């Protein structure tokens, strides 16, 4: 099983087509939608994690591209400026997934990108404005 995190941008005329449905039906992919911004007749954006075999993922991505959907791999969506972090832990108070947590031996804050849901709750919770989103 492989996992890929991708950002999809749907052109205006594609927003209302059942592209996502086909993706799960025809390519047997498990989709975990992390964030969505889809308004009728506007450009839509979707951040999701695909789980399936490598082959199925590649087929699915090919189908998306052929349907006119722009596919980017998701890289560094949430960024923590290490050098400015005070390791206070305030951000861990609001992180729903445990992606941000305190190592209780070193008392440093650790960011586990794989667990991040991109909800951005941590951004306003950091008093030092050390967390940024590149979405």
């Amino acid at each position, binding site marked *: 099983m492989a996992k890929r995190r991708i950002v999809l941008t749907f052109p205006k005329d594609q927003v209302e087509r059942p592209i996502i449905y086909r993706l799960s039906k025809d390519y047997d992919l498990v989709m975990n939608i992390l964030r969505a911004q889809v308004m009728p007749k506007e450009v839509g954006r979707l951040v999701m994690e695909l789980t399936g075999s490598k082959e199925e993922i590649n087929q699915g991505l090919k189908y998306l591209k052929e349907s006119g959907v722009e596919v980017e791999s998701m890289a560094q969506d949430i960024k923590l400026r290490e050098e400015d972090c*005070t390791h206070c832990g*305030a951000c861990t108070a*609001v992180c729903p997934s445990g992606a941000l947590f305190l190592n209780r031996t070193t008392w440093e804050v650790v960011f586990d990108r794989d667990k991040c849901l991109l909800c951005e709750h941590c951004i306003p919770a950091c008093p030092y404005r050390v967390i940024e989103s590149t979405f």
Partner: protein
Amino acid sequence: MSKTYQEINQRIKKGEAVVLTAEEVIDLAKEKGTDEVAKKVDVVTTGTFAPMCSSGLILNFGHSEPPIKMSKVWLNDVPAYAGLAAVDAYVGASEISTVRGFDYGGGHLIEDLVAGKRIKLHATAYATDCYPRKEITTFIDLNSINQAVLFNPRNAYQNYAAATNSSDKILHTYMGILLPRFGNVTYCSAGQLSPLLNDPCYRTIGVGTRIFLGGGEGYVAWEGTQHNPIRERADNGIPLGPAGTLALIGDIKGMNRNYLRGATFTRYGVSLAVGIGIPIPVLDEEMAFYVSVADADIYTSVLDYSVPSRSRPAIGRFSYAQLKSGQIEIEGKKVPAAPLSSYRKAREIAQTLKEWIASGKFLLTEPVRRLPLETTFKPLEVKEE
């Protein structure tokens, strides 16, 4: 077995003093007992790093040609108080920028100044015979001005209540973002490393005590505002909620940005995070007992911030060992607990101060005046006349 300040300082000067951090001494006390701590250890160093709103900076800009008696002053668009002599001003950590609002305030200004950045100074005045100028706009930095003295009326709270939220709404507070229906708990104390929790009855921390402040040297100037020593205490002498406070003073010219950081609390305001470390002489067995306190022996209340009153209801009482485990139980529900105070920085500060003392360059001072043990913290009543 007791020691005097003079004896301890002699040992520091000779490089013979035994200095431990407030964390390290706990292990020694557990293994060998507090009488051994009293015999072996000369000094215990503490540390804390957290937002402390009641902080600010006294500035003297020097005189321009022609001179001005500044009556309104802005520094990077943050208003400063100038109702002092011609070119003196005080800028509070919680003051916000007239342009950038909560994104920039007094705390950020202090951080920028200490980091060596150029700061825009704008001032207006009514002209007088000896001060004819009515307006000035110029740039200053830490080296171009005469004084830049941190004077913090209330820092280093001896314990602080933790916060939670029973309501259905998200709350934006100075205790951080509180999630609905007991979604989280936040707390703000270094616990076992915190200065006033290691000298709970203010035997050695008093007016004139030399300390680590913002990465440089500072002094305890006075008791802090809202100093409330009569707070209920546990058998070990430790207050069970916010009690004593300290007013601190120090030249920011020797400080650094690692320990003075502007902070923004979303939809609440701005503040300054201050790094403080206080050395505690182990004068006798009583002090040895106090400095050996551990998180499991320090308790605080969790208050419900959904009640916007000066007396918020308490949900329960927990030890810092429980809070620091990252989870406590409220009404049968497991609630994540997170700090606002950086324990890593508190550790760093206690360690740095330990090195300063061990290397002989930082001597202890005997307080010239004790902090009060009796004053009370009065509320403000709203009166018609």
